[in-house]
């Protein structure tokens, strides 16, 4: 072999190797993406990258507070249909339990959950240091206040709160419209609210007013409300509405407005009674730090924030956060923008930070 020919061999070898190496490097680089990089990946091939990674993972685990039969399962099934190579392991629990489990798993170094979703979830998980930044293009179209500026959470659903009234005990004309209406002696002993169950009952009622008026005026009002012998009820919001329906109480404060609406549509003697400003909270989705299946997790988060995904849990009587979706026809009657009432969105951090003081006032004045 002469020098020229050997040079050709080398050139060919090198020109053959380089692309091979490049591909190798590229694949290696792709596999070596950290979870955070996966979660915040923004390249044009994002979908492809996520799907390829998810194919290798095969499953994803979610802990959520949504009702299983009407919402969580249909959502999981729709997701599995879209990505037949993925299986969803879902677990339903209340927020305190979800937080317990996530924190405990993280501390033991045995994280099993990938995605977490519920109301009243974000501050606990963020401050516990068990979730990580992520970005889903699906939430780019959302109103600013529904996505965390620190990229730790995005909103999946919304809830609106207000009062419920028993239509047989409270005539339409008498229904309280302003906060002072609640101080009418006629309602003494007939009003109830939820206490001790976390932060969406009496505590949220107080927080709402504090944000509206400032602490001083709010406290003065609360003192007066205490004179109405408001009954403290420990149970779910839905159950309190049932009590109103049964006639145990005339008015329930700060319950989910869609509950009495749904019951009224079935013929029950109850009606939602929104009062301005209508406090609204969001349910959020987060991604676990050291999630065992980060690629699949992002796909799931994308799906839950997308129009298709959010549609699946409309049947659970949830209000979708995605602005492209309308709430279901039956439930429109309590959406603030639809009925022309002022809404006061309370962010997860605000709820959490103000809860202690609000619950202390309740203990102080209503025991």
């Amino acid at each position, binding site marked *: 072999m002469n020098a020229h020919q050997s040079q050709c061999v080398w050139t060919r070898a090198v020109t053959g190797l380089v692309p091979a190496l490049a591909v190798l490097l590229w694949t290696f680089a792709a596999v070596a993406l950290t979870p955070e990089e996966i979660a915040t990946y923004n390249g044009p091939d994002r979908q492809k990258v996520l799907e390829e990674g998810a194919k290798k993972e095969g499953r994803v685990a979610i802990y959520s507070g949504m009702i299983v039969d009407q919402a969580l399962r249909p959502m999981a099934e729709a997701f599995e249909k879209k990505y037949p190579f993925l299986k969803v392991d879902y677990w339903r629990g209340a927020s305190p339990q979800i937080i*317990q489990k996530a924190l405990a798993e993280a501390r033991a170094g045995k994280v099993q959950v990938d995605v977490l979703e519920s109301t009243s979830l974000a501050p606990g998980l963020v401050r516990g240091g068990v979730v990580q930044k992520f970005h889903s293009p699906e939430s780019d179209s959302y109103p600013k206040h529904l996505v965390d500026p620190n990229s730790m959470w995005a909103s999946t659903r919304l809830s609106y709160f207000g009062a419920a009234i028993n239509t047989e005990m409270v005539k339409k004309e008498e229904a309280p419209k302003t906060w002072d209406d609640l101080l009418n002696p006629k309602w003494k002993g007939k009003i109830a609210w939820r206490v001790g169950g976390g932060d969406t009952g009496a505590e949220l009622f107080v927080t709402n007013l504090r944000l509206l008026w400032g602490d001083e005026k709010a406290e003065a009002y609360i003192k007066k409300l205490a004179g109405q012998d408001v009954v403290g009820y420990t149970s779910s919001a839905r159950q309190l509405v*049932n009590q109103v329906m049964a006639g145990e109480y005339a008015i329930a404060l700060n319950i989910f407005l869609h509950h009495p609406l749904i019951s009224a549509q079935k013929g029950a003697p109850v009606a939602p009674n929104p009062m301005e400003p209508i406090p609204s909270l969001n349910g959020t989705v987060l991604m676990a730090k050291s999630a065992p299946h980060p690629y699949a997790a992002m796909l799931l988060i994308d799906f839950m924030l997308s129009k298709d995904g959010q549609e699946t849990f409309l049947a659970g009587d949830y209000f979708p956060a995605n602005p492209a979706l309308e709430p279901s026809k039956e439930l429109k009657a309590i959406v603030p923008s639809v009925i022309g009432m002022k809404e006061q969105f309370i962010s997860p951090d605000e709820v959490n930070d103000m809860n202690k003081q609000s619950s202390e006032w309740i203990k102080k004045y209503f025991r």
Partner: protein
Amino acid sequence: MAVRSARPLRLSPAVVVLSVVLLALIIPPTIFLVQTSVHETNADGSFGAFTLRYFGELFGNPRLFGNLVNNVIYAFGSAAVAIAIGTALAWIVERTNTPMRRYVFLLSIISLGIPSVLYTVSFLLLLGKAGPVNDLLRLAFGSGGPLVNVYSLWGMIVVEGIDFSPLAFLLLSSVFRANDASFEEASLMSGAGLWKTFKNITLRLAMPGILALLILVLIRAFESFEIPALVGRPGRVYVLTTDIYDSIHTQVPPNYGEAGAFSIILLVIVVIMLVFYNRLSRRAERFQTITGKGFRPRVMDLGKWRYATAATLGVLFAIIIGLPIAIVLYASFLPYYDGVRLASFSTMTLANYAHVWGSSSFRDSIGNTIIMGLVTASLVGPFTALCAWLAVRRVRGAAFLDQLATMPLIFPAIVMGVAFLHLFLHLPFPFYGTLASLILASSVRFLPYGMRYSYAGVLQIHKELEEASALSGARQTTTFLRVVLPLVAPAIVTCWLFVFLVSVKAVAMAILLAGPGSQVVAVTLFDLWDNGQVTELAAMGVIWAGMMTVVSVAFYMLARRYGLRVH
């Protein structure tokens, strides 16, 4: 022949093994409990600085005295109600010839099969302001007349007492069943009437069983969260756990410090109570009614009085089972619940049943749940029988077994759930989130109940029956298997049924420990409650109570066929 040195100072190997097992199960949650009560909880859930503030908050609570008084009244009141009802039922069923008494057993099983929260709620529905009882009172006395207010201390006493009475009945019935009728007949022949005989003979002999119940109910009442929250709070009746319950939820992550501190105090009280109980049953010979001498458990012929007792049975039934079941059944057919009205009958529908039965989360979890119940009950029964036997025979060190097995009583279920959550996560092999982990945690939780059933059962066996076996050449294990177990079997069967029925209902630990693949029905029930779907919960409750009844009856018949000849 084996000859060993006289005066062996070492412990029996059985006691050692059992102690090790119990310590392994109970020490980790207890350590967690102690740590929780003296440490701050950080945002990531780990323990922070050492602090005594929880104890300080407990004792420094300005309402402490008021809450304590309420708690004491509540605890003793509900104990009195439960024990009175349980004793009356047990005596009528086991010691007399009242007609229809066999059905009491079946109906207690049904009532235990109803999910707890539903049971409580059905009483609230019955007795609430808008409930049928008050409606009747308004009809009778007009709207200005006396009304029943269930959201009060007496309401709490009644609901908790009635809730507990099936347990009281089951435990006392196994005690009464083994009473040799000759003791009572001797009393009657001496001229004492039925009441005196009952008071002086029957009750005295059943004293260890009654005291055991007392311990169980009192501790349960002191650490119960649900009934004070559901029944007491709306009526502004506060007990010690009301503030504790709040303290858990006002912080994120939930803070169990105060709950832990409270449990530690309860632990001290339980230990004292057990010492007292042990001293009383020390003269065990006094309670040994299963003797080898003419033992024929006969029932007493009440003559004409048996119709009166049958009527009493009827009334008690109506209160304990009939009315709650009626309300639950009624609610299960309604689209929504708004009180008991004639108008509602026209809206009745089977939609709730269809929904429940169609719910795959319910159907999928039935298998898991039944397995969990079966295994838990089968572990607790024989295990506690062995511990109880060693303790009653005063084998050296066995009193410690009794104390250990009773300790889980002081843990509120939530705290025990969190404690086991941490324990299981730290095990080097996959255990967290499995059905087995839930079974283990359940077994520990129900050990105290098993212990009291078994202890009362063993106490009744005359020591000479075991001595005769030893003198016939049998070693201790043989004596235990051939003589003690068959004689204590009725108590164990009842214990099995009880643990089975109650463990499948237990929610608080299941919601934390069950994983995606090991869901149990209790959690589904709780979800329905949490979502306020009362009518669907009622339908599920009816279906569940029906299934539990079938399983229990099957088990009972099986047990009769094989072992229960002492009946």
